[in-house]
């Protein structure tokens, strides 16, 4: 049994009087491919934002790779191995596709003090010391960049190689030099995934990766997501409106409505769940149309 990489327990978040998310539970292990669905405004993206640290949960805990991350900043949570894409594409538009991925491929070797040691300090409660060492590492890193030390140059080459490789994986190698903002919509979505992969995630959260894609691109994306999971042994959580895609690739599905989890299970079970049919499809359910069929 593999380790739970992303674990949300009874996570709730409240904006004023509005309960956007209520007792949300989630468990993602390496190799998992799970889906999160629900009607508009059900709290799917809010769930993502809580998991990645954009919002702090009102109650409950989120654990990434065994660490409780409540109250940590998004970039710290990202470093623990949680990467995401955005519903409304948030690429670095005027940078080239290659630079977009390179930004995410942060240098991994902290040469002055080892990251594991700093993490150990932080765990033992000496966060002040840990922050100090972190800062020293950072200053050292700046000076390496300003003095162009051989180690730094090697690292830059590594980053470039890795970024190019990720672009190839996502089928964007030929777009490397182009401005990210000028790519076609489907490619921008794929570039966002490539960028997220640059941070070496253990768990990848995809927020509507197929939005705006045509049928052919969606079919390719389904294959690609599975490939990514196997190749990088990722745990993947997908928010998606396209039922065919969710039902086609996800092994487990969580259904949200008004911030509450109303169903959880395999696609078949979820599809048959009367609560889901009512909440998600509403009137359409009465006409006995199977989920995923286009009207």
């Amino acid at each position, binding site marked *: 049994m593999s380790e739970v990489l992303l674990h949300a327990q009874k996570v709730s978040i409240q904006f004023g009087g509005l309960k956007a998310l209520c007792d949300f539970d989630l468990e993602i292990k390496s190799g998992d491919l799970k889906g999160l669905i629900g009607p508009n405004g059900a709290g799917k993206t809010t769930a993502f934002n809580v998991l990645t640290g954009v919002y702090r949960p009102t109650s409950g805990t989120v654990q990434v790779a065994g660490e409780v991350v409540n109250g940590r900043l998004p970039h710290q949570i990202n470093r623990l191995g949680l990467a995401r894409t955005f519903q409304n594409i948030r690429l*670095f538009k005027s940078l080239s596709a290659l630079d977009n991925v390179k930004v995410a491929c942060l240098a991994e070797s902290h040469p002055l003090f080892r990251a594991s040691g700093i993490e150990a300090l932080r765990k033992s409660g000496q966060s002040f010391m840990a922050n100090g060492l972190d800062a020293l590492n950072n200053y050292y890193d700046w000076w390496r960049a300003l003095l162009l030390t051989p180690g730094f140059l090697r690292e830059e080459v590594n980053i470039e190689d890795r970024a190019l490789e990720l672009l190839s994986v996502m089928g964007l190698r030929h777009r490397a030099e182009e401005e990210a903002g000028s790519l076609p919509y489907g490619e921008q979505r794929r570039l966002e995934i490539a960028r997220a992969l640059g941070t070496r995630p253990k768990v990848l959260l995809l927020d509507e990766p197929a939005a705006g894609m045509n049928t052919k691109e969606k079919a390719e994306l389904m294959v690609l997501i599975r490939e990514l999971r196997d190749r990088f042994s990722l745990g993947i959580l997908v928010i998606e409106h396209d039922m065919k895609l969710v039902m086609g690739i996800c092994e487990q599905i969580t259904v949200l409505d008004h911030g509450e989890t109303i169903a959880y299970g395999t696609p078949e079970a979820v599809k048959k769940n009367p609560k889901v049919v009512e909440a998600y499809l509403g009137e359409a359910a009465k006409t006995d149309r199977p989920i995923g069929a286009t009207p």
Partner: protein
Amino acid sequence: MSKDALKGPLPVILALPVLALLQVTLQDHDFLIYLTSLVGVNVILAVSLNIVNGMTGQFSIGHAGFMAVGAYSGGKLSLEMKDYALSFLPHVVSDQISFMLAILVGGAAAALCGFIVGLPSLRLKGDYLAIVTLGFGEIIRVIVQNTEAFGRALGLSGIPQSSSLAMILFWVFLTLLVAKRIADSSHGRSLWAIREDEIAAEAMGVNTTGYKVRAFVISAFFAGVAGVLFAHFVPIINPGSFTFVKSMEVVVMIVAGGLGSTTGSVVAAVFLTLLPEGLRSAFSRLDDPSLAQKVDQIRMPIYGLLLVAIMLLRPQGIFGTHEIWDRWKKKPKGAT
């Protein structure tokens, strides 16, 4: 590869003899040296402000404040050290060493201010940050204006004129080198990422607050250096040299050159510094010499018109976010 040949501190070492040669050959051209010094200081200011406003996309309009911190702390130090010299060295060398010390102290003082201002205010965005930096610039000016040690409104006079062409060009060179190397590194990419989309940058593991503060500190350091250099070739520094107008002048330079483009900042800084001089010599050829004396008064309207023209014709600035060499670098644009 040629890239490897420019590794490490080598460019600085190579530049030194060139600068020394320049210093020796141009020694007697006083006006040229003065002009180059002025251009140099403005180039340093523009390039350093560009690190914050252009690369990181924050809007700081208090650069003259950092310059003032550098100018006054460095200038004061030089005044105090005026009578001391390293006896075992020739006079010129000893002078330059204490000048260098003043530069480093002034830069460090400005960097410290950058850190102090940056820490709380860089959690602010856009207009709010602009107001804080504007306030900082004014606070510095007012403090200086009311401190006896800094000569109140009269300013500091008698600072040794130890500035040399070589020293100024050396710091211009160093500023450009640092800007270029930041742009070529993962740090530069992180700064761009913040400019493009802060939320996405944060989600990709970029410590956005940390990077913004660091950009601010580096930028402030070089502004301080520019201030010290300035203090050592003008006969007198007073609070009037570091007003909001000076900050705006630098902002105009980087906006005209293209926010985010180091070479654009340089070109604009050189052009906008030489413009009043050019006008002066153009007007002095006219029949009415009084016009030449009014150049300083008509400089601001001309700046304004120029800015309006640039915004209408090329809103992204002369070079946009690109560098001058991007144009002749191969680019498979529009590949199928």
